[in-house]
C-alpha cells in the first residue's frame, strides 16, 4: 500500500484552510447559514487573518449558533437574544486589537435586539455585523420575523401583512459606515464583501439573505432560494484587492468605482448603474426603495463612508488594550488620593 501525501495549500501566515474551520454544523442541510460560514472561513483564510485576535459574537437563534461552525480556534461569546451588540461593544472597548465578528439573525437584530442594533450603528463600533436574514424564526418553528416582506406567506399559507424592516435602509439612516447586502448563494459577491468588511474600520453591516430550508423555502416566500435567485438585483460586480497585492485593473469610467479601505485594500465596484455613488446616502436609500417596490433584492455594497471616526477613536483610547493596561496606568498614585481626600475636608 502506498500513501500519497500532498501538502495542503497554506495562506500567507502559513496556515492551512483547515485551521479556519469550526465544529460540525448542526444546522439543516442546505441552510443558507452554512454557506455563509463557508465564506467566512474562506475570507479569513485567504486574507491570512491571525486567529489569536479574532473574537466571535452572537445572540440567540439558528444564525447565532453558527460561530461554533467556523474559525474554531478563536474566542467566542454566545450571549443572550438580541443583545450581542452590547457584549461585542464591551469586549472591543476592552481590547481594541480584537477583530470582532458578530453573527445575528433577523429576529435577533430586527425584533428583540433592534434597540441594541440601532445604538451599535450610531456608535460605529469596529465590528463586522452579519445578519443571516431568512425572514423567519427557525428554532421556534416558523413564525414571521420583522424582515418578512409584505405579502410573503408562511408554509401554512398565513400572509404577512406588516411592512418589513429593511436592515440596510435602517443602517444607512442611522449613520452606518459600511452597508452591504448579499445572498448566501452568491459565493463571489459575499466573499468579496466579507473581505472588504475586514478592511473597514468601523461597523460593517452585512445583511445576507440566507434562505431557511425548513420553514421559508416554499412558493409564496420572498426569501426562498428560488425567489431570491430570480429576484437578486446585484448592484454591479464587487472585487476585493488586498493591501498586499498590486492594483492594476482597467475599468470603464462612470460605471466603476475604486474604494480605498482603511487598511489600504481596495474594493472595486464595476458594472454599476450609471453614476451610482455608494458614498451618497440618499442615492443608496433610493436604490433600496426602488428595488423593494419592484419586489427585488438589491445586493452588493450599497453604502460606504470611510471618513467617520470609529468608537475607539472617538473615546480616545490608547493603543494598548484597556484590558491589559498595567496597574500603574489604571490606579492613580497615593498623592492623588491624598489630594482628593483633602478636597473633602
Amino acid at each position, binding site marked *: 500500500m502506498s500513501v500519497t501525501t500532498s501538502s495542503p495549500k497554506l495562506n500567507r501566515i502559513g496556515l492551512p484552510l483547515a485551521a479556519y474551520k469550526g465544529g460540525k454544523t448542526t444546522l439543516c442541510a442546505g441552510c443558507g447559514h452554512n454557506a455563509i460560514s463557508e465564506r467566512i472561513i474562506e475570507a479569513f483564510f485567504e486574507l491570512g487573518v491571525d*486567529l*489569536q*485576535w479574532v*473574537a466571535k*459574537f452572537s445572540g440567540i437563534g439558528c444564525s447565532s449558533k453558527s*460561530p*461554533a461552525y467556523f474559525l474554531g*480556534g*478563536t*474566542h*467566542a*461569546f*454566545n*450571549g*443572550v437574544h438580541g*443583545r450581542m*451588540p*452590547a*457584549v*461585542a*461593544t*464591551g*469586549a*472591543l*472597548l*476592552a*481590547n481594541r*486589537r*480584537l477583530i470582532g465578528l458578530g453573527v445575528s439573525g433577523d429576529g435577533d437584530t430586527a425584533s428583540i435586539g433592534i*434597540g*441594541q442594533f*440601532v*445604538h451599535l450603528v450610531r*456608535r460605529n463600533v469596529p465590528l463586522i455585523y452579519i445578519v443571516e436574514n431568512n425572514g423567519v424564526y427557525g428554532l421556534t418553528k416558523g413564525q414571521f420575523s420583522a424582515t418578512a416582506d409584505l405579502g410573503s406567506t408562511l408554509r401554512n399559507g398565513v400572509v404577512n401583512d406588516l411592512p418589513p424592516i429593511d436592515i440596510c435602509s435602517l443602517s444607512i439612516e442611522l449613520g452606518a459606515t459600511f452597508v452591504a447586502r448579499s445572498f448566501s448563494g452568491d459565493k463571489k459577491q459575499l466573499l468579496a464583501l466579507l473581505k472588504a468588511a475586514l478592511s473597514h474600520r468601523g461597523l460593517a453591516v452585512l445583511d445576507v439573505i440566507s434562505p431557511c430550508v425548513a420553514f421559508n423555502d416554499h412558493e409564496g416566500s420572498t426569501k426562498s432560494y428560488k425567489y431570491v435567485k430570480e429576484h437578486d438585483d446585484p448592484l454591479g460586480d464587487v472585487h476585493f484587492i488586498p493591501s498586499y497585492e498590486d492594483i492594476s485593473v482597467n475599468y470603464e469610467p462612470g460605471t466603476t468605482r475604486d474604494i480605498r479601505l482603511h487598511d489600504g485594500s481596495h474594493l472595486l465596484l464595476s458594472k454599476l448603474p450609471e453614476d451610482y455613488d455608494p458614498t451618497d446616502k440618499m442615492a443608496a436609500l433610493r436604490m433600496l426603495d426602488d428595488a423593494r417596490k419592484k419586489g427585488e433584492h438589491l445586493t452588493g455594497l450599497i453604502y460606504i463612508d470611510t471618513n467617520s471616526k470609529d468608537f475607539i477613536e472617538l*473615546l*480616545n*483610547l*490608547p*493603543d494598548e*488594550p*484597556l*484590558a*491589559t*493596561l498595567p*496597574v500603574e*496606568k*489604571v*490606579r*492613580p498614585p*497615593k498623592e*492623588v*488620593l491624598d489630594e*482628593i*481626600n483633602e478636597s*473633602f*475636608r
Partner: protein
Amino acid sequence: MTPSDTQVEEARSALQTKKVVNDFSIRVATVNGTGSQTSNLVLLRALFQMGIPVTGKNIFPSNIAGLPTWFIIRASRDGYLSHTRDSQVLVALNPETAEEDVHTMPTGSAIIYDEPLTLDRLRDDVVFYAVPFNKLVTPICRDPKLRKYVRNMIYVGVLAHLLAIDRDEIARALNKQLGRKKKALEMNWAAIETGWQYAQQHLPKRDPFILEPMDQNRDKILIDGNTAAALGCIFAGVTVVSWYPITPSSSLGEALIDYMKKYRIDRETGKATFAIIQAEDELAALGMVLGAGWAGARAMTATSGPGISLMAEFSGLGYYAEVPAVIFDVQRVGPSTGLPTRTMQGDLLSTAVLSHGDTKHIMLFPGSAWECYTMALEAFDLAEEFQTPVFVMSDLDLGMNYWISDPLPYPDRPPNRGKVLTEDDLQRLGRFERYRDVDGDGIPYRTIPGTPLPAYFCRGSGHNEQAEYTERPDAYVRNMDRLARKFETARQRVPAPEVIDHPRARVGIIGYGSSHYAILEARDHLRQQANLETAYLRIRAYPFNEQVEAFVRRYAPVYVVDLNRDGQMRDLLKLDLPAELTPRLRSVRHYDGHPIDARHITDDILSQEASL
C-alpha cells in the same frame, strides 16, 4: 426698634440655663429647583468644619422644579450620625407645606419663615422669626431670574446669626461650594451677609438652640456614598464603565466621568485609560460590562431597582458563563417606579437570585460612605476571583447624602485578577479546560481573548468542562454543582460581618447597609431607656459566613433591621440558617422612604420585647 448686640447677648444669657448646644436638628423646607441644596450644603459643611458631628438628609421629590423638598441637618454632640425625625429648628419657605411643617414641630421649636406667610398665627408654643426674604433679596440681585436662587442663601445668614455658626466657617463652606464661580460667590455671600445683618438687627434670640465649636472632625472628610463608590472604582483600576442614568445612581456615573477625566488620562500619551459609555438602557449597560469583563477588563455599571430588573437576563448569563462584573445597585423605593427619590433596601431578595434558573449572586452591603469606597475595591477583586457578577447594594441614603467619614484609604494590595491562565499555568496544568474545577474550590481557570493562550467558547447555553455545548444531564449537573461549590468558597472570601458582642446581652440585632448608624444609636437608647443591653452583628456580604449563624445561636431573639416591608434580609437569613434557628429571628422594618432613625428601632424592639 432694632435690638443691639448687647440686647442679643442679654437675651442669650437669659437662655443660658436651658440652652441646647449641638444637639438638635434643623429642617429646611423649600421648593425644589431653587438652589436650596447649595444653601443647605453650606450649612452642613460649616457645622462639619466647626468640628460638630453632623449629618444631612435630603428629602427631595422626583421633579425638576416646583415640588416640596426638605433638608434635615442634625448636629449631635454625642456623635450620632443617623437620621432623626424630630427637628427643633425649622426654616419654612415653601408656602404649600408651611402650615403642615409648622404643625410637625415640637413645643419650644424655633421657626424662621417667609414673612408674607404669617405663620406666627398658627401656634403660640414655639418661637417665630419672620424674615422678609423677597424684600431682602431685591437689592442684592438685580436679575429676577437669579433671585430665587440667591434668596435661599439669606436663610444661611439668618441661621448663622441665630445659632452662632462661625462666620468664617460659613465663608469657607461657601467657597468650597461655589469657589470656582466668582460672581456667584460674591452674590451669595452678599445674601448671607444680608441675612446675618437682618437677624442681628431684627431678630432677638428667643430660642435655646446654639452651636458651639467642637473638635470631633479632626482628620475626617465629608463625602456622599456615590462619590466614594466612584473613587473606589477608579482606584480599583476600572477601565470600562457602561451605565444608564437612573436616580439615585446617576451621581455615581457622573463622579466617575469627572474623576476619570481628571486623574485617568495618560500623561505621556494624552489618551484615556478608560471607556465610559452611556448605554441605551440597563440591559446594554450590563451587556457591555460582561463583554468587557470577558475580554479581561475591570468593568462596572451603576443602577437602581428598575435597572436591576432589566439586568436580570444578563446577570444570569454572567453567573452561568462565569464572567466578572461589578454592579452598583443604589437602591430606591419600589415596586415598579415607586418613589424614585426615596431610600429603601428593597432589592435584596430579587438580587440574590437575579435571573431565571438556579442563579445566586454575591452581594456586598456597604454600611457607610467609607465602605462604598472600600467595597468597590473589594468588589472588583471578588468579581475577578470568582468570575461572576458582584452586586454592591448601596442605597439612596448612603449614595446621595453626605456623611462624615474617615479619609479614604489607599489600596494596600495590588488588584487580584483571579485565575487568568498564564503560559506557566498552562504547562503546569497540562491542558486547558475552561470549566474544570482544578483546585477543588469550584473556581475554574480562564483565558483572555487576544492572548496566545487557548481560546474557548463562552456561552449561556449548557456546556461541559471544555465549554462545549451539551445537553447531557450529567454534564449539566456537574457544572451546576461546581457553581454551588464556588458559591460556598465565596462565603469565606467576602467581607466578614462586624460583630459587637456583650456579656450582658440576651437580645441580638442584625443590620446591614444604611441602618448602621441608627442601630448604633438605638442600642444606646435601649440601654439608657430600658436597661436592655444588645449585641450587634452587621452583615457586610452575602453569602453569609458562619459567624452569622453563630451569632443567631448566641442571642435570642435576634432583631433583623430591614428598610423594606417584607423583611427581606430576615427572609434571606431564613433561607440560609438551620431551621431550628429561624424562630429566633424577628423583624424591625421601616419602609416609608425616609432614612431609618434610631427611635423607630428602639420603639419597635421595646414593643416586641413587651409582647414576648
